[in-house]
Structure formats: C-alpha cells, structure tokens
C-alpha cells in the first residue's frame, strides 16, 4: 500500500482493548476498514461484522468437479478407450473406482481451495508484503480506517480512536 495519507491507524497494545474498541468506534458511526493483529483474536470477525467466507462453497464446487473428472478419466480409459476385464468384473466396476474417485475429489478440492484463497487474497509468489505498521507482526494491534470512505472528518476519527484506548494514532 503506497503512502496516500488516506489511512488513519489506531495502534493498540492489548487484544481485549482492541476488541472493545471495535464496537466503540463503530458505535460512533465510523466505518472500520480492517484490524491487523499478530495472532487471531476470538470474536473479532463478528465484532467487525465481516461476512463469513464463501470458501466452503468453492470447496464443494471443486469437490464436484474432482468427482466428475475422476469418473470421466476412469470411464474413458477403462470402459471406452481400452476395455479390460480385471478380476472377472464388469468393465464398469464402480466399487473398484470409489477410492480413486475419492482421491480425485480431495485433490481437486485441496488445489482448488489453495488457488482460490491465494487469488481472493491477492497473493502470488514474489508478492511484496503490504504492511501498514511493522509492529503488527510483533506485539501491536492496528485498526485501519479509510478516511475517503467515511463521512466523519479526520479529526473526529482520530479523537474517537484516542478515546477508545489507542496508544498512538498515525496517518499513512
């Protein structure tokens, strides 16, 4: 994130304080962009009002795709292209194929999910990390507020952050 002076950052030094600060700041009609923390905080997502991730739906879709692809491959090779009798069973020996179908489903789900996750989070190899404040990788909790997306003035936002217990307020 380049320095645009669009962001007001409230820096907190305690996880409970930042959790309470979220509802306090929100109650003043200020829209919070995101809260950055060194570790996951229980209940923060709910407090911020973030919608739940839609990754499980993607997982289900990739699973279905994997199931179809695995079945298609086995059917093509074992039934249509080069039919073979194995163990005296039919060409279409479905029970034998269940393990492979399962593996195909899991494989597609796993790769598909990781790829979707990376794309939706704008992650790729060689990506430069965007860190608003280096201390969020250590022991500070940072609440980021985008001034452009708020109707309140910068001064009001700064005051609200101070009041909610921020140890310092920066602009970036």
């Amino acid at each position, binding site marked *: 994130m380049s320095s645009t002076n669009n962001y007001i950052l409230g820096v907190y030094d305690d996880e409970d304080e930042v959790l309470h600060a979220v509802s306090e700041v929100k109650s003043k009609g200020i829209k919070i962009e995101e809260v950055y923390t060194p570790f996951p905080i229980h209940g923060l997502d709910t407090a911020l009002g973030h919608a*739940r991730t839609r990754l*499980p739906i993607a997982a*289900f879709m990739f699973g279905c795709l994997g199931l179809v692809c695995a079945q298609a491959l086995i059917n093509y090779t074992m039934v249509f292209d080069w039919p073979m009798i194995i163990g005296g069973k039919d060409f279409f020996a479905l*029970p034998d194929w*269940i393990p492979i179908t399962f593996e195909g489903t899991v494989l597609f789900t796993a790769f598909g999910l990781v790829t979707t996750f990376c794309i939706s989070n704008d992650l790729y190899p060689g990506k430069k990390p965007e860190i608003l404040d280096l201390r969020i990788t250590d022991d500070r909790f940072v609440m980021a507020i985008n001034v452009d997306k708020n109707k309140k003035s910068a001064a009001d936002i700064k005051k609200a952050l101070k009041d909610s217990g921020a140890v310092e307020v920066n602009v970036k």
Partner: protein
Amino acid sequence: MAGHSHFSPANVEEHFEFSSEGKKRIIYGFIAGIVALIIGIYLLSKGESGGHEVAAAGHEAVKAGHEAANTGHEAAGHLSGGAASHQPAAEEHYDWTNRIWANVWLNAVFFTGISVIGMFFVSLQYLAKAGWSSVLKRVPEAFPKFLYVTLPILLAVFFFKGDVIFHWMHHGVTEVGSENYDKIIAGKSGYLNKTFFIARLIGFGAIWLILWNMLRKKSLEEDLVGGTEIFTKLVRIGVAFIVIFGLSSSMFAWDWVMSIDTHWFSTMFGWYMFSSWHVTGLAIITLTVLLLKDKGYMSYVNENHLHDLGKFMFAFSIFWSYVWFSQFLLIYYANFPEETIYFLERWEGHNKIYKTSEILNILFNFFFPFLVLMTRDAKRTRIFLKIACFFIISGHYIDFYQMIMPGVLGPHGGYGLVEFGMLTAFSCAFIYIVSDELTKASLVAKNHPFLPEALHHDI
C-alpha cells in the same frame, strides 16, 4: 460476540423434572409396543402353518441349487448352494418363534451399544480434556443405566435360546462323528464355546458397570465438593474405560454379531460394529439435548455446542461409511466365495427380501447425513440436526438388522409388527430409564473445572 452468556456456574443448578404426564405417555408407548408385539406374534403363529409349504419348497430349491454348484459353476446355483451350506442346521431347525428371539437379540445388542456409548463419550471427553462438552456431559452420563436391562437380556437369551441365534451352538457341531459335525466350527471352538462366551459377557459387562458407577459417583461428588482433584480421578477412570472398551467392543462384535455367521469372518468387523454403535450413540445424545432444549432446559447449551455435536455426527457417519465400504470393497475385489456369500446373501439371497434394507442402509447412514449436515448452518439449526438424527438412528437400526437377521432367520425374516413392537418397547424402556436417571443429578455439572470455558464456547 454471539451467545455471550452471563450464566454463572457456581450458583446455578438445573434439575430435569420427569413429569407424571411424561411418564404416563412413555408407559402407554411401551404398552402399545407390547400389544403390537403380541398381535405380531399371534399373526406369526397363524401364518406359519400356511407358510410351511413355501419354506419346504424353498428348501428343495436350495438343495437343487447345491447340487448344481457341485457339478457345474452356474452363478445362480452357486449362490443358493452357498447359502444352503452356509447354515444348513438353521434351515432344518427353523421354528416360527425364532423370529421373536432374533428380535430380542437385535434390540438388546443395539441398545447395549447406545447405552455404553454414553460412557464412552464421557470417557473420551475426559481423555481429551475437552472443555466444550462439560455443559452436556450429564446427558450421556445417564445412558449406561440401561445396561442393567440389556446385559441380563443378552445373557438370558444366550443361555436359553443361544442355539436359535448362533450356528456354533447347534447340537453336535463340534463333536467328531456327529452328523452335524462341522470342521470349521470345531476349529473355532477354543474361542466360541458357551463357558468362555458367558465369561466374556459377564466379565466385561461387570467392568463396564463398575467403571460407570465409579464415574457417576465421582461426578456427582464433584457437584458438592468442587476443586480439580476429582477431575483428575475422573480422567483416570475415563482412560481405564477406553482401554477396556477398545478390547471389549471388538470382542463383543465378534461374539454377539459376527459369530452368527460362524463360517464367515472379517477382520474389520470390530471397527464396523463400534462405528455403528458410536454414531447412533452420538445421534441419541444430540437428540436428547435438543429435546431437553425444546422443553426449556439447558439454555446454556447454545448453537456452538450443537455445532460440535453436529460435526461429531457428520464425521462418524463418514467413518461408518468408510469402514463399511472398506469391508465390502476388499471382499468384492478378492471375490472368494466363502467371503462374498455374506454380501450375496444380503443382496440377492432369500428372494431378495434383504435387498431394500441394504440399499436403505447406505442411503440413511451415508448419503442423507452427509448431505443434510454438510453446511455450517445445518449443524447449527435444530430442525436439520433432528432430521439427521432421525436418519442416523433409524439407519443404524437397519444396519444392525442387516448384520443379524439374514444369519439367524434366513428366508423367514421380514419387517412386521414383531419388529415394530419390539423396537417400540425397547425404545420406551430406554427413554424411561434414562429420563429417570437424568432427574437424579443437576443437568449441569456445576463444578466441572472446564464449565466456564464451555459457557464461553464460540466457534
């Protein structure tokens, strides 16, 4: 934060009241079950005089098939021939009352499993030092009381009617020179004999009950005393039970169910039956908690705890499917006649009377729970959990039916008033005894050291 409860553990007790209204209803249910059972038995005794000829004709056909199997390798002949050599003695000794004893055995095994899984669940939570389950642990803790009913029934049926259920108990199968002599069964008689069977049943059953009584006593003492000392002792009882149960659940699976088809064996069977018991027990725990919540109890059990129970049911439905399928796939793939006969008998044998339940078995126990419980919202919604509980409980009754009935009754099995009445009677007895046991303690284990953690459970 959703569901932030201000419930303070130290000063709250909640007691389940088993109203006389409720008692009456359960007793009426029990009586209705018994009446259905008696009508069913009456119809069975009437129907058998007409049914004899059919059975005899079937017997002839089976014999013919047996000969065909000896001379040629005709697929159909091989199937019925296998079924005939599988259990010839049962065919000859068939009596219409056998169906009653088979039903008693089926329900006793099924409900023994549900009861003992209550103890297993609590032990497992202590072993894992899990916090979330401490809000609802009094529910599974009450289940093993029903073992006082089912274990004596198992013992009595085995003692008086064992030869109806078990091929290996037939007269003379282990005596050299007897016309019933069976070399394979004689080879297994070191393990499968009356004395050792009864010793295992009484021995492990007694250990189960002793450990449960110890756990229950300590758990109730904790309500009065508090502290963490009792918790450590409970962990030890839980560990002891898990070790014993790991051994005994497999042995009972061989004894009570697998030895019905004495010639056949499967190394997966212990796991298979345990997984069936476990997922049914989990469904009954969930259903009990949901019903108590519907009555206004257990307000501190929120959707997060239900979510965990839902995950348990979902996971163990898949575990059951995995074990069932692994057992099936190996037998199907290797294609040894002495192994495939087990599945052929259930799929195509006996005029296909078991085929429907075999299909329902897979639908109810794998596909329906898998699809119903897949999403997060479903696991947090009571009605979806109830639907899943219904499928799992009825599905696993069918599963046990499929394990026991084809081996005991062969072509004489079926679904009728006897099955319905016996299941209703056992269910009502189970509900009555567990409800009664629930009244004897606070519904919340108020001094459980992990209770505050459980009350703030949030996932």
